């Protein structure tokens, strides 16, 4: 599974993407964020306030309750500020 990071989350993690293989009990976006936080202190700190982390699974914007099973790409990023 490929994870993409954008904006200040990308900057704080010092990477724009990474390949991960979460265990099978990682069912939702929320689970994935928990699992990524458990293995990386910088990630845990940057995502402490979960309401500031938005997610997309396979190029569709989703809630943290959305499933990630079988996902090709999960993107994590701050609230959007375009326009």
């Amino acid at each position, binding site marked *: 599974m490929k994870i*993409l990071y*954008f*904006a*200040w989350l*990308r900057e704080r993690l010092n990477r724009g993407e990474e390949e991960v293989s979460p265990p099978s009990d990682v069912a939702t976006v929320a689970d994935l964020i928990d699992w990524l936080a458990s293995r990386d202190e910088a990630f845990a700190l940057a995502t402490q306030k979960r309401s500031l982390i938005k997610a*997309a699974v396979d*190029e*569709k*914007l989703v809630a943290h309750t959305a499933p990630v099973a079988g996902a090709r790409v999960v*993107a994590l*990023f*701050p*609230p*959007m*500020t*375009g*326009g």
Partner: protein
Amino acid sequence: MVVRVSTAPFDPGAETNAFLAAGRGAGAAVTFTGVVRSSPDDPIIALTLECYPELAINQLASSIDQATSRFGLLAATVIHRYGRLTPGEPIVHVMTLAPHREAAFKGAEFLMDYLKTDAPFWKQETGPDGTHWVEAKAEDDAAKARWE
């Protein structure tokens, strides 16, 4: 229905004319153009926009679909730039076409309100004191909520 997400500059007037020409026979066209702001009180040297293009295209296309069926638009286009922009440069250009003005206005406002909160762009402002990420605004969430 057209969505364009690109680092290339665009010409708002030329886009408006092309949009109007394609809509020959319709009555009302509204365009919104957002440009990089700068003022003496809050001087900006540059605005750098980060983008997730694949998601941006999906999100913008879906908001155009919603606006089209909700307001009976005959056509709608969203153009959004990213990369480094300087004051006065256009960032976003939204165009709607409808038989009557109310639908065209509502459609354009709807598209802008959705775009602000739901399209994956992130602004970074460079001013005399350095560079910082622009924070999302509660008023943008409120503006979007009025359509729900």
